[in-house]
């Protein structure tokens, strides 16, 4: 107790302490049982996160450390001979290196992985106490170079990589706990140290190994791998002079080292006892319960390869030739498989840079404008006005101001593309209102322009409104993604399948109409330009002909290629939309068939007297209730639509047969559409193809996605056949012994689970 009193002295308690134990005990006894006295601003719910003293599960002070752990000395060079020392250091470096991937891939914390290494704790503690940029406070003094130079390099490169991940994490793209745990226990991870200081330390170590320890091949490989990990820092763009292409070599080295390391036989030498320990959780400030340290499982070098390949994939976006390609890259790169957390965190930072540039190619406003140009703006009156009017004209100024607002929402979309699968849906939820509000504002702007004569007729008293059309397209796409992602995440109960798929079908219908409007505009504009050529041939030589020729040439050079490209892209979007519509419709039919035989209902039968099916339905559709267009159908509209899909007596069997035939023909059309799209993706940028998919940078991922859609089509077809066989010509009332089961076919798209009929 004396030493505790000494420490109390160190707390600089100059004031006398008064013991109030007995007084407080007496006061507490007078409180009514179950009453709690608390600070007004304190939320008792927070109390559930508190660490309980003397509870072994919550109190890190109670961690029991072994004698080896207690006595471990970082300033001792373990091992008798040089060979043994090399073997020990190799084992420590190997374990440390593997710990990095255990941390990142298994959602583990730093104290149970990287920081459990005593050398890391010791060196970073010293550095935190005195953070010098020359690393003079970050050393080991065992007296042996294999520890003092080589192991130190391993620790420094590892910690520098932790700093890189911290930098990515602080950008706010990925989330604490669900994506990554970045708690460094208050240790400073080389914040003041430059990358070159660390890499030159590593280079010196590699030289030492080559010259004096030629047999330390594994150790050299590990150090090379760790060195390339630290160099990932240079992939985070800082200014326009950065070129990721120059840094790709870093990742190739990383992959090469990891491939060699995973082929090496497991080392028989173990790390020195006590060199990896949970003790840091007991020694340093810690607001978390104690946890056992996590042993590597053996697949860590494969994980390094995956991470490096995923980062390389992100860097490929640099090669995009158009905004459509960037857009499709973002849509597909993280779709079929969730990319590594480091790659996901890097993507938005790499794409949208601090210097207000997109990939060093576009300013933010130009990037947004190009989204319109590559969809609906090209060849419009507005595009012409923007080109010919002065930069300070009210039209251009207002347009640019809108582009800033568009950029803000568009960047949400791009950032969302690299989110983890659950956040992805939440991101769309957040975007819906942003797109909706943007649409409302931009529509007013375009209506004003129309009153000034800047408009593009589409026939039948309808106009294009190119800006609104694109925003509406983005909104509808976001709404559909939000709805369908819910199936992947098991958000909906089977009884909700009908409403969600019917709503999805409804949205797809609106999207299809919107895309057809754009297509009509593109066709019209292409026809106008082609007509100019015919007119030219008829005109006699003169000023009028010269003027028309010059207009025609300008249009052919500047508008026609983009118009044709836009047409092919919109054609692709239409095919994709039709696919979504068809699959949603088939799901609707399946539900209606099963409801027709009384095995499922579209209402929550467990609704209590405090709720009702209508209230539960409204809660599910709350997100959409404030969306202006398309209007959310009423509850009764949902109910009535189901009645129309259901098969009623008389002639149940005949009607059922007709439904089955209709489904099969729709699925056949969907399969043909997938084949067509996949063919276009395979052919890439072949100018002769009718579609432009913009997927040449994510060809494999896009093909994988459409392959999954194909699998869903096959699964839906097979389920249709099963329903046909099971129901056949039986009476619709004879299925009381059946139940439904939700299944997803292997490798099929998770947006389209199957409602299958099974015996109870």
């Amino acid at each position, binding site marked *: *107790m004396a*030493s*505790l009193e*000494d*420490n*109390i002295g*160190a*707390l600089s*308690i100059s*004031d*006398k*302490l*008064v*013991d*109030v*134990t007995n*007084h*407080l*005990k007496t*006061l*507490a*006894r007078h*409180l*009514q*049982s*179950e*009453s*709690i*006295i*608390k*600070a007004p601003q*304190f939320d*008792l719910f*927070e*109390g559930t*996160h*508190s*660490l*309980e*003293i*003397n509870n072994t599960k919550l109190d890190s*002070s*109670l961690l029991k450390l072994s004698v080896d752990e207690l006595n471990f000395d970082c300033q001792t060079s373990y091992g008798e001979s040089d060979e043994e020392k090399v073997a020990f250091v190799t084992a420590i470096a190997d374990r440390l290196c593997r710990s990095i991937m255990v941390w990142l891939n298994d959602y583990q914390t730093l104290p149970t992985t990287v920081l459990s290494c005593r050398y890391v704790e010791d060196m970073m503690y010293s550095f935190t106490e005195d953070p010098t940029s020359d690393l003079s406070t970050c050393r080991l003094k065992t007296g042996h170079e294999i520890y003092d130079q080589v192991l130190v390099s391993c620790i420094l490169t590892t910690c520098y990589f932790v700093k890189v991940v911290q930098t990515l994490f602080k950008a706010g793209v990925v989330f604490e706990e669900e994506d990554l745990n970045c708690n460094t226990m*208050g240790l400073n991870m080389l914040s003041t140290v430059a990358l070159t200081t660390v890499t030159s330390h590593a280079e010196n170590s590699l030289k030492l190994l080559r010259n004096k320890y030629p047999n330390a091949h594994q150790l050299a490989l590990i150090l090379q791998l760790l060195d390339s990990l630290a160099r990932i820092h240079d992939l985070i763009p800082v200014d326009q002079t950065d070129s990721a292409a120059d840094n790709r070599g870093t990742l190739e080295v990383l992959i090469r080292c990891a491939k060699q390391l995973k082929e090496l036989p497991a080392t028989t030498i173990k790390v020195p006892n006590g060199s990896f320990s949970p003790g840091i959780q*007991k*020694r*340093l*400030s*810690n*607001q978390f319960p104690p946890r056992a340290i996590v042993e590597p499982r053996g697949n860590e070098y494969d994980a390094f390869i995956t991470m490096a390949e995923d980062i390389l994939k992100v860097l490929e976006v640099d090669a995009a030739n158009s905004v459509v390609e960037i857009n499709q890259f973002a849509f597909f790169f993280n779709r079929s498989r969730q990319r590594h957390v480091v790659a996901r965190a890097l993507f938005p930072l790499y794409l949208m840079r601090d210097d207000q540039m997109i990939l060093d190619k576009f300013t933010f406003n130009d990037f947004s404008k190009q989204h319109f140009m590559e969809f609906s703006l090209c060849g419009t009156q507005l595009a012409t006005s923007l080109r010919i009017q002065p930069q300070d004209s009210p039209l251009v100024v207002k347009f640019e101001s809108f582009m800033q607002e568009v950029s803000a929402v568009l960047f949400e979309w791009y950032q969302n593309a690299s989110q983890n699968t659950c956040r992805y849906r939440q991101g769309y939820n957040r975007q819906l209102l942003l797109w909706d509000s943007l649409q409302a504002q931009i529509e007013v702007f375009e209506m004003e322009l129309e009153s000034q004569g800047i408009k593009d007729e589409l026939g039948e008293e309808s106009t294009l409104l190119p800006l609104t059309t694109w925003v509406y397209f983005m909104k509808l796409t976001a709404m559909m993604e939000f709805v369908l992602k819910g199936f992947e995440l098991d958000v909906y109960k089977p009884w909700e399948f009908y409403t969600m798929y019917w709503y999805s079908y409804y949205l797809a219908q609106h999207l299809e109409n919107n895309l057809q409007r754009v297509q009509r505009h593109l066709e019209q504009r292409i026809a106008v330009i082609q007509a100019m050529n015919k007119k030219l041939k008829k005109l006699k030589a003169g000023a009028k002909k010269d003027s028309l020729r010059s207009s025609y040439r300008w249009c052919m050079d500047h508008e026609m290629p983009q118009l044709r490209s836009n047409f092919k892209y919109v054609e692709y979007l239409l095919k994709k939309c039709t696919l979504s519509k068809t699959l949603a419709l088939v799901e609707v039919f399946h539900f209606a068939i099963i409801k027709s035989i009384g095995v499922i209902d579209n209402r929550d039968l467990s609704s209590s007297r405090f709720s009702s099916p209508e209230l539960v339905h409204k809660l599910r559709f709350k997100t959409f209730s404030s969306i202006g267009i398309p209007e959310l159908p009423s509850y009764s509209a949902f109910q009535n639509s189901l009645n129309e899909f259901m098969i009623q007596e008389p002639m149940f069997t005949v009607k059922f047969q007709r439904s089955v035939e209709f489904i099969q023909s729709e699925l056949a059309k969907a399969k043909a559409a997938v084949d067509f799209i996949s063919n276009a993706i395979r052919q890439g940028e072949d100018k002769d193809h009718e579609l432009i998919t913009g997927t040449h940078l994510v060809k494999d991922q896009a093909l994988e996605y459409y392959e999954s859609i194909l699998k869903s089509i096959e699964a839906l077809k097979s389920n249709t056949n099963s329903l046909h066989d099971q129901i056949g010509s039986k009476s619709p009332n004879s299925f009381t012994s059946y139940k439904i089961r939700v299944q997803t076919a292997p490798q099929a798209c998770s947006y389209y689970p199957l409602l299958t009929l099974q015996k109870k």
Partner: protein
Amino acid sequence: MDLLKLHDFIGARVFVTVAGNRLLSGTLVASDCELNLLLDNVEETTSETRRRLGLVSVPENTIESIKLHESALNSILKRKQTLLRDIV
């Protein structure tokens, strides 16, 4: 000190000695009728370390003593006396 009720101590920085030669200093944010305490911004001091623990619940059966700075206690008392006088 008899003037003081339990809620008067809420918000005070207290020094709680618990089993195992540990001293916890933190802000008292809540207590129940058994004198189980919730302390925030806790700093733990032992013979070996001093470290921060954040929000900590201290079961009554682990508490050896609860102390306050004399000046803090006087300040609480003074505040209470002023309050009572104003009410009267």
